[in-house]
């Protein structure tokens, strides 16, 4: 490809902002001290970490800096939150979560259920990916240790009413945790004005480095560390501080705060233009998720009668990067659990493509995709046995097994 590649897979990961890299570099070679050390090498690093923690706390609207506990990533933060709650909540042994969570939560709670360490309630969603509030209210009880429901869904961008969900959880005496890995940096957050007890985030989703994340733990919420050892993070997460990454995440948080308005306006407009253009140019396609309440950067479009991996391979040849909830891209046999939870028909779920923008995208990216997609979709549909018979494909296509 001679043209610049078009990267529209920012929900998978983002490019580390060059300013972030610049901020990190001195902490590898010049200021390499251990933040816990008494000497000057350590003290300078300690000061930089304090500054970075402040920047991240500001992005989240946390009341206190020490509410931030750095972790190795979003997954570790999720595990820490849920496992801790099962220890600190006395006799309460139930976990409530949603059917569309990230595997970081769903795999963990499935394991807890299997090994008899928790009873798990999985709350369903409707066709637009919105939480079944009635089922949620019913599941809450004096046995609920913790509720863990994501702030924004990674595949569709659908936002969950976490402020309200948190208050309902408190009504039942349960802790409330949210996996906000996709939300932090994309939408304004002010934790001090909410009842949210714990929140997970990941550095590399907001133009920070990989391998760093954080768990916000509201002051007063008891925490049992997942990793024990030294006194780092006030005894809540042992292990020498990953100083370069912490400082990089601090810089990324500052940049995200500075670009927050742009995310809601310019980036959102790009997303909307792409979405409207694709829907107008390509028939038998539709947007999945809750279009009225979702992240400004994400759109997930299902193209019927074709398969996602084939679409991505052809897009890749045009230099366009996106992702798909198709079974074949993950090596599993089932399409995305998120789309299946929303009852998106199989005719469409396999052909769902997620486009996720960031502040680094421009109008030329949208133009490129709008030009490339219609022939790709047409080509694969021409090859599909279901396309021409789409009105009566169940009657005409009679596989020996179904």
């Amino acid at each position, binding site marked *: 490809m001679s043209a610049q590649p078009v990267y529209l897979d920012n929900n998978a990961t983002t490019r580390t902002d060059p300013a972030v890299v610049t901020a990190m570099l001195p902490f590898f070679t010049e200021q390499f001290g251990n933040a816990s050390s008494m000497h000057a090498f350590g003290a300078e690093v300690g000061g930089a970490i304090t500054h970075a923690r402040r920047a991240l706390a500001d992005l989240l609207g946390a009341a206190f800096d020490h509410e931030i506990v750095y972790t190795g990533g979003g997954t570790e933060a999720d595990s820490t939150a849920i496992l801790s709650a099962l220890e600190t909540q006395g006799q309460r042994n139930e976990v409530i979560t949603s059917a569309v969570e990230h595997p970081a939560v769903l795999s963990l709670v499935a394991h807890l259920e299997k090994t008899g360490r928790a009873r798990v309630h999985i709350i369903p969603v409707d066709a637009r990916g919105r939480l079944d509030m009635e089922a949620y209210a019913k599941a809450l009880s004096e046995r609920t240790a913790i509720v863990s429901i994501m702030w924004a869904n990674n595949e569709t961008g659908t936002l969950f009413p976490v402020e309200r969900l948190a208050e309902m959880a408190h009504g039942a005496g349960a802790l409330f945790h949210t996996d906000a890995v996709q939300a932090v940096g994309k939408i304004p957050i002010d934790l001090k004005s909410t009842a949210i007890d714990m929140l997970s985030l990941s550095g590399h989703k907001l133009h920070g480095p990989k391998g760093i994340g954080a768990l916000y733990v509201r002051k007063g919420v008891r925490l049992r560390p997942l990793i024990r050892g030294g006194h780092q993070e006030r005894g809540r997460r042992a292990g020498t501080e990953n100083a370069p990454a912490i400082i990089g995440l601090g810089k990324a948080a500052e940049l995200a705060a500075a670009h927050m308005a742009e995310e809601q306006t310019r980036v959102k407009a790009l997303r909307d233009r792409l979405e409207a253009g694709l829907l107008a140019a390509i028939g038998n396609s539709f947007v999945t998720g809750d279009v009225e309440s979702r992240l400004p950067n994400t759109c997930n479009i299902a193209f019927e*009668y*074709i*398969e*996602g*991996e*084939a679409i991505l*391979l*052809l897009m890749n*040849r045009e230099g366009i990067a996106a992702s798909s909830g*198709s*079974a*074949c*891209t993950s*090596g*599993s*046999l089932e*399409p995305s659990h998120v789309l299946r939870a929303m009852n998106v028909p*199989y*005719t469409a779920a*396999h052909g769902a493509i997620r486009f996720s923008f960031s502040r680094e995208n421009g109008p030329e990216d949208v133009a490129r995709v709008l030009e490339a997609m219609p022939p790709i979709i047409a080509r694969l549909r*021409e*090859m*599909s*046995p*279901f396309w021409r018979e789409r009105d009566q*494909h169940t009657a005409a*296509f*009679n*596989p*020996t*097994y*179904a």
Partner: protein
Amino acid sequence: MWEYSEKVKDYFFNPKNSGILEDADGVGDVGAISCGDALRLMIKVDAPSQTITDARFQTFGCGSAIASSSALTELIIGKTIDEAMGLTNQDIADFLGGLPPEKMHCSVMGQEALQAAIANYRGEAWVDDHEEGALICKCFGVDEGMIERTVRTNGLTSIEEITNYTKAGGGCSTCAEGIEGVLERVNAAMVAEGLLAADRAFHAGVVPLPVKARKVVRTEAPAARALSNLQKIRLIEETIAQIRPSLQRDGGDCELIDVEGNRVLVRLTGACVGCHLSGATIEGVQARLVEAVGVPLLVVPVSAMH
């Protein structure tokens, strides 16, 4: 991103024989939209010679499904029906220069579509007996359905037995948790169906530490077998000849290069090259040789010389 061979990529980007074959003599439909892949194979057959003169496909599926479908048409055009019936999914995968283990089912779908199309041509009904599940062992491409069938058929109750019967878990062994899950579930179902005594069923829990089998290296040669150099080399040759067929079944081979005192130089070829199990293969060859020859021997692999 999958590691597709250049040939898979080529057959996906430039598929041959895609489209509808008007007046097809045989049509085979397999797969379903719910499974994420489906294939319709259409064939034209010259009745007197029973030769497939043309073939086309339509595929709903991923890159390797489309490439496998196209490869299938290339493989069968010009073949007689009987020749085509002998085609296996491995032939399709080999034609494409290999498929990732997670994608082998695409080649299976090709083989099944062919059988269905031929059955349709012959006016027979084709019954599929294939079911698949999530891939458990990536080293050997063993899926959940395969493990479940083997456990049920043979009444297996341990991970080791599953490895012996299916190879699953015999490579990097990181899938042990997955195998345990399947075994526990299937054993529990068998107990409920009265097919297995409850006390024999597998329960995940305390798993004994894997004990590495002691290497069969004898320090003392049995006195009765004082072999001449020539006899020793002949015995080594014969023993290696006995081992080779089992290596060849897995696409590998082992060749005797030289014997220097107690050092046996061999060359591993074919699939053994670069296989992460080649160390185990060497150990196995050594154990067999020591047993047969009765003297301590060290098997040394030498790299291919050109």
